[in-house]
């Protein structure tokens, strides 16, 4: 994960190490406060253009994998492959293909809801 702020990379490393796991966490990084006030006053919230994330492909793949496992953990995939009927197999296959298509598009955003709407 790279966090870009006004064109500058301000974080380069795993998202877990930065404590960012959702859009709300990112919002905290966007908020600018006037610390001369007591309590500090919110004076600006950086826009999506002023602060944004560039994901590594491996991180996008992890999001995709987690999403697939949410509906089809590996044991379930094995069962569908082993015992499922044609309809079940097609349903799972279409879902996995849709998730893979999501992850292979240019600059997918795992937090904009586009992944969540991909369901079996």
């Amino acid at each position: 994960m790279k966090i870009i702020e006004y064109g500058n990379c301000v974080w380069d490393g795993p998202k877990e190490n930065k404590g960012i796991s959702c859009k709300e966490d990112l919002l905290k990084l966007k908020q600018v406060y006037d610390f001369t006030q007591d309590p500090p006053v919110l004076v600006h919230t950086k826009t999506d253009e002023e602060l944004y994330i560039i994901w590594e492909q491996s991180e996008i793949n992890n999001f995709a994998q987690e999403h697939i496992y949410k509906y089809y953990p590996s044991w379930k995939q094995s069962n569908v492959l082993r015992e499922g009927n044609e309809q079940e197999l097609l349903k799972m296959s279409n879902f996995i293909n849709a998730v893979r298509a999501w992850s292979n598009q240019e600059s997918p955003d795992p937090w904009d809801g586009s992944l969540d709407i991909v369901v079996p």
Partner: protein
Amino acid sequence: MPIRTSSIVSQSGLPLGFMQIPIPIVQHSATNIGTITINPRYNDSTAHTALFDSSDDYAPGAASGGNAYVDISLPMFPHHDTWMNKVHDSNYGRRTGTGTAIGDIGRISLWAQIGVGDSPHPGEDYSYAHIAMLRNQAGAYHSYQTTNSPSPNYSEPRTLGDSANTLGSFANFKVSGQYYAGGAYGGWYCLANYAGGLFGSSDTLRIINWGGNTDARSRIRIVDMVYILHGKLGTSGV
């Protein structure tokens, strides 16, 4: 009755000493494992006088490819100021009327074991690197510049301790040394001693290797790094 020297023990017989909380930032886990390697941005003397003045300086690429910097999350918040914090009651060594033991001193030290270059016993000042250390600031317009407006002034780096953008400060200081046996023949460098406001409210440390010579002479390895919160003990106890 114990022998008591007022400058050493309190009336209750406890030491009037200072205390430290050492907080490891980088800990190598085994030889050559868990260390951080940063290749130099410059393989020449450009690094000797490098300072911050453009966007590229803040996340520079190494001369040989990859990054010439690393971001390290601080494992514990390094706050040492006494904001609204106060322990009420002086039992168990607590200090009252002076905020907290850490806030009473308000100082931090920073130490590191750094491997410089690739060679053992290279001779003094043969392997060297110019280094910058920045800290971030949540809630500010810019993580790594102190400019208080959306348009950054790249000559205002948020260095450790907010030291000036000058040579010899955290914007560019020089270390020399060696590297052998995964750092086993290293040594502790004192990077800051009892400094006030070193980290502020940051949660991330960015280390930039400006370099100065070939990769083999100016590559650095952070083998271990620790910061130390200094405090003052209470005079009562159990």
